[in-house]
């Protein structure tokens, strides 16, 4: 294990046991994952897949039953290993007696930030998340979206090198989501590693460079978003294709779909696609478009989960 990785786990396993009745439940099953420094990584999985348990083990809130985890090369069980980390939990319960500014001050102090640095960072961060006028208001008065924003500010207080965000856009309106994405993108530009645990696949697809899909506590699929969403084949779209030619093209196409009066032929390879274009052009048929086929992350996710 080296510090070239922000997060590195080897065979990380968590088994929950109850005594009465005697039961065992493997929430995380030997996950080995490497998140390089400076990347944006999305952890996906259906409810109960073990995502949150995995994150809690990284933060030492839950102790692994087997395996190990390192943060920037340091054993995650050592408190000092958590210094370069900012964390926003999913179902957070920020103390409602605190104001937004109090909260940032408290968690900033726990992260080791001196009081002068805290005094400087608090207004900066409140402005960054759009809560500059709410710093003196108790958190009990905040809306869900505002709590997410101040929670994000809290995670960023000590300028961490790794942000672990569990459903950061939960309860945030589309404009707010966009703003959060912009903030995270700016951090990414500065080299901050961002580890996102989210159900919003579109958001993960838009933001993350790498993803891992976990199911039943195991990594079911892992790779870059580009690799995973890259489909195989080519889509050729044409209008007014005569019946006879349609039948001929269908014979070599993987699938055909009608869209707005046009036909979309999906061919497995470049050769089949070029032959189809030649046939269409030989009959003076206009080709509307030729595209490399891709999948959305959602399609990849559903395929992966259904395959298991």
């Amino acid at each position, binding site marked *: 294990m080296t510090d070239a990785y922000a997060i590195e786990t080897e065979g990380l396993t968590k088994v929950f046991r109850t005594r009465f009745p005697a039961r065992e439940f493997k929430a995380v099953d030997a996950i080995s994952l490497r998140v390089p420094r400076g990347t944006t990584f999305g952890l996906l999985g259906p409810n109960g897949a073990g995502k949150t348990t995995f994150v809690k083990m990284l933060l030492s809130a839950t102790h692994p039953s087997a395996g190990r985890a390192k943060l920037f090369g340091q054993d995650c069980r050592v*408190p000092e290993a958590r210094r370069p980390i900012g964390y926003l*939990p999913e*179902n*957070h*319960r920020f103390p409602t007696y605190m104001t937004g500014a109090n909260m940032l001050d408290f*968690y900033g*102090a*726990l992260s080791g930030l001196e009081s002068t640095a805290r005094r400087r960072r608090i207004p900066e961060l409140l402005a960054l998340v759009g809560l500059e006028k709410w710093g003196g208001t108790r958190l009990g008065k905040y809306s869900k979206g505002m709590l997410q924003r101040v929670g994000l500010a809290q995670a960023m207080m000590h300028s961490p090198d790794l942000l672990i965000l569990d459903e950061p856009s939960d309860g945030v309106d589309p404009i707010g989501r966009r703003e959060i994405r912009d903030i995270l993108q700016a951090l990414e530009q500065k080299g901050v590693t961002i580890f996102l645990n989210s159900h919003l696949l579109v958001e993960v697809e838009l933001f993350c460079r790498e993803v891992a899909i976990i199911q039943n506590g195991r990594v079911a699929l892992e790779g870059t978003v580009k690799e995973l969403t890259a489909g195989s084949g080519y889509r050729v779209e044409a209008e007014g294709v005569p019946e006879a030619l349609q039948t001929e093209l269908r014979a070599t196409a993987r699938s055909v779909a009608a869209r707005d009066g046009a036909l979309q032929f999906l061919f497995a390879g470049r050769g089949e696609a070029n032959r189809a274009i030649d046939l269409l052009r030989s009959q003076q048929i206009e080709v509307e478009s030729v595209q490399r086929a891709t999948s959305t992350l959602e399609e990849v996710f559903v395929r992966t989960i259904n395959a298991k």
Partner: protein
Amino acid sequence: MPSNLLTATIALVADTFREALARKIFWGFLLCSTAFILFFIFIMKIDVVAGALATVTIFGRTNDTQEIGQLVKNVQRGLGGFLYTVGMFLAVFASAGLISAVFEPGRIELLLSKPVARVHILLGRYLGNLLVIAINLFYLVVGVWLVFGIKVGIWGIGFLWSAVVTLFVFSVLLTIILLIGVIWESTAVTVLGTFGIMILSGVLSTHTQLIKLLSSETSRNVVRTLYYIFPKTVDIGKIAGELSAGGGVGDWMPIWTTALFGLTMLSLSIYIFARRNF
């Protein structure tokens, strides 16, 4: 202490204070203490009749002339007894919520994600809670002590020592609150458990009478053992009373065995908290 640790400790203690203020616990105690002090300043009038003799007037009703030193001792002893019993119950009740709140899901994970050891988080909360009670206790005791000192010129420090003893017993009870809170995370269970141990400790203080009623030697040994294990709140209460009245500590055994109990509870709390999954 490294500056990071100091910063974190101050933050944890300050957070406990902030929560106590928000829950009105601090203000409630402060208000009661101020009412007591004002009572002794304005309502209770002590008139020195002749030399060491004085009369006490409360709401216009004057008591018989008493020896002034004895009078002050009696009042201070009464107040000490009140703090040791009613005040202690109130402090336990208020602290149970302060401790168990830390373990709420969604709050504890965030605390644990910070570069602070679990033992530090637990001790920070313990210290903060102890300070909330200590400030209130000493505000009242020192306030009353000053009132009597200024009014009649009696400055005996026994009363102040009784407050130290009261705080010591509370610090031990707080370790029980901590242990139950770490295990069950419930304010109600914490209150019931701690009150249960306080009551059991009261029953065990009568162990000399109790063992006379028991027929088997095994049962008598069990009672004796339990008496030595559990905190001796009643015995230490008597010591606090003696100190208030200007006496000294006759027997240190109740104090050191109770301290040992507290240290054991604290160690167990730290051990269990370090191993828990959240």
